[in-house]
């Protein structure tokens, strides 16, 4: 474990970008785009630097203001952190590339980029922080930025969806805050490592149980686990396409799934009951999401329900609890971020070119928009789990992990859900891209260059994603992340002994 001074830059760079944007971006035309690209490139680069460091030293620590925890706030980077950082910032970079063209249709580009940078800063803050109240503060930054971004075009649908999202999201945040208060009242400290130590020495089971429930409800609402998912099918389709990609691709994972994992593994210590609850919630999400996705004719709404279903998959992998299950869940998290963002960006491209999202009103787009169709096909194949695309490997691993753990029932449900996933993917492909081109759409063109570039890069990762499972590559990226789960509260012990 070493100290590293680069960690706060993960939050600092996007924050600086947002403030600079507010100052300069108003008058000068090209500044918002440029700042956006530079900032996300910067954080992505830093993410890779930290990956190298974590591979060498396993845990990085940073004490803000040089106050040792638990007196001050600490930032901790371990395998899981760097995994999430890379996923989030990679998607953010590619989405920003896409937005340089897509957002030209909206006014006030500087506001979009400011809010986007702030959302990114909030997510990075949630991921790197080692202090539970700090997690709440940065969670709120990302959440409030996302409420404003969903409403960005101020159309009727967007406003309604944003309001519903804002109220339900705030409800979730209040539950999280309540949980934080209970934990503070019980352990009298806010640092996650210190809290884990205090809980180890013996704590009241009842308070920990109540706090676990509160956190599960609060973060579950952020992650759109059923039955807390009601905001997602409205919010994700109504938002502008790059924001849908960010929301579905990374926000629900950074704020929801990551927070649940970090709290329940590194602070509370995982128990069999908790794993079973996660397993159950995951299965329910998976089934509800898949069944509701089948009925949809709105392209983005279909993708939104698909997100609910895939997050269910990830939860199942985590709930299984074996090393293979966790590895599979993390791999699926990465894959889903990539292909879901790709699909949302693709649907945005379709909307950009044709002006509609209704699958019944389109068809045969592959003829006029070959690149969009091709990349969306790649994303869909990955979502459906067709070899050799990345999604196939991660879904297969989850099923194998379930079988290995003796959970045959869950494995069968997962396979059935996969088949149904293939069904709705086929629906989207057939009605959207294949088939006959309606008369009024004969004159459409494919989308501008930046959008194409961004979608192609994402498609490339979809295809090549399976390579992440090769032993050498796996060691670098996925294995360290899954070690966090196995270590559990040992991490806290290491941090506190280093600090004393």
């Amino acid at each position, binding site marked *: 474990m070493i100290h590293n001074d680069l960690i*706060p830059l993960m939050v600092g760079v996007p924050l600086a970008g947002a403030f600079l944007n507010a100052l300069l971006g108003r008058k000068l035309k090209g500044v918002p785009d440029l700042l956006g690209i530079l900032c996300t490139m910067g954080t992505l680069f830093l993410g890779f630097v930290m990956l190298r460091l974590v591979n060498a030293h396993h845990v990085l620590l940073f004490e803000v203001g040089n106050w040792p925890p638990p007196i001050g706030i600490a930032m901790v980077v371990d395998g899981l952190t760097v995994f999430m950082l890379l996923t989030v910032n990679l998607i953010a970079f590619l989405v920003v590339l896409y937005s340089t063209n897509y957002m030209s249709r909206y006014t006030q580009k500087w506001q979009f980029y400011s809010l986007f940078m702030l959302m990114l800063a909030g997510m990075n803050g949630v991921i790197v922080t080692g202090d539970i109240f700090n997690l709440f503060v940065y969670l709120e930054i990302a959440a409030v930025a996302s409420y404003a971004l969903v409403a960005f075009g101020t159309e009727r649908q967007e406003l309604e969806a944003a309001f519903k999202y804002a109220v339900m999201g705030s409800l979730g945040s209040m539950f999280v805050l309540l949980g934080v208060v209970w934990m503070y009242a019980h352990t009298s400290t806010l640092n996650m490592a210190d809290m884990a130590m205090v809980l180890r020495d013996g704590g*009241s089971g009842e308070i920990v149980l109540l706090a676990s429930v509160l956190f599960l409800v609060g973060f579950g609402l952020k992650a759109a686990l059923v039955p807390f998912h009601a905001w997602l099918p409205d919010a994700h389709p109504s938002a502008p396409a790059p924001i849908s990609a960010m929301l579905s691709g990374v926000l629900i994972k950074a704020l929801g799934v990551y927070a649940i994992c970090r709290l329940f593994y590194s602070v509370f210590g995982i128990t069999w009951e908790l794993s079973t609850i996660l397993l159950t919630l995951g299965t329910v999400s998976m089934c509800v999401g898949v069944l509701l996705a089948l009925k949809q004719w709105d392209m983005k709404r279909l993708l939104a329900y698909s997100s609910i279903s895939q997050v269910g998959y990830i939860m199942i992998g985590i709930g299984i609890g074996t090393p293979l299950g966790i590895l599979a869940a993390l791999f699926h998290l990465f894959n889903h971020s990539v292909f879901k963002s790709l699909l949302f960006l693709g649907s945005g491209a379709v909307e950009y070119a044709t002006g509609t999202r209704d699958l019944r009103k389109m068809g045969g787009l592959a003829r006029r928009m070959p690149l969009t169709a091709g990349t969306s096909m790649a994303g869909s194949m990955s979502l459906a789990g067709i070899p050799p695309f990345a999604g196939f490997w991660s879904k297969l691993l989850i099923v194998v992990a379930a079988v290995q753990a003796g959970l045959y029932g869950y494995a069968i449900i997962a396979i059935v859900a996969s088949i149904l996933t293939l069904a709705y993917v086929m629906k989207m492909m057939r009605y959207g891209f294949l088939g006959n081109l309606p008369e009024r759409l004969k004159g459409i063109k494919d989308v501008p260059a930046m959008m194409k570039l961004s979608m192609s890069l994402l498609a490339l990762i979809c295809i090549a994603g399976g390579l992440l499972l090769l032993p050498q590559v796996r060691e670098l990226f996925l294995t360290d992340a899954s070690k966090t789960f196995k270590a559990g509260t040992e991490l806290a012990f290491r941090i506190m002994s280093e600090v004393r």
Partner: protein
Amino acid sequence: MRIFLSLVVLAVIAVGIGKTLMEIPFGEDTTNVGGYYIQSGRDDTGAANIVTSVVVGYRAFDTLGEVTVLFVAAVGLGAVLAVGSASGRRRDVEPASLVLYTGCRFLFPLILLFGAYIFIHGHLTPGGGFQGGAIVASAFLLVYLGCRGRRIRHGWSKATESLGGLVFVGLGLLGLTAAGHFFLSNYLPKGTVNHLFSAGIIPIIYVAIGFKVGAELAGVIDDLVEESE
């Protein structure tokens, strides 16, 4: 039906919480970190108000997050309310009566002064940047409600807001060059406790935050008032 379900959910929550409520003693001393702050707050940061030393000293990163959330709300509100609001349906605003108008004009600088007192003395008395900023914003709200038709100039409020934020972040970053620790370490001389010019960078930060929050909230009020006309 909906009411019934909601009541059931609430009853479950109430029972669950009621059982655990006994576990937390009320009014007993169980502090761990808090005790350290009280004992060493004056030496570490120089502020007489320990809450200030926690907010701006030990947990300054949270304060940065807080300032950022306000900024997000201000920018977000600007984005949501800006488009297409010039619908031209300006009703004629009934001018305020002379008593109301004069009263508001008289009170406005007094309230501003009070707010400024609160954020300047944040390290000595209860209060601080956020509280003082809110009072400053309420002075502007009084002007909007009482002296109808007067507006603050948008350019000034945005400039003050940005400047305040930059001072806060800049001071934090200066800690890197001046004292070798990245971010928000108290490096200016601490002076003697209980004097106005003590506690290093804390009063400067609080003044910056006071200006920022006041300008931001006043800007938010301005956006909302403009929208509803």
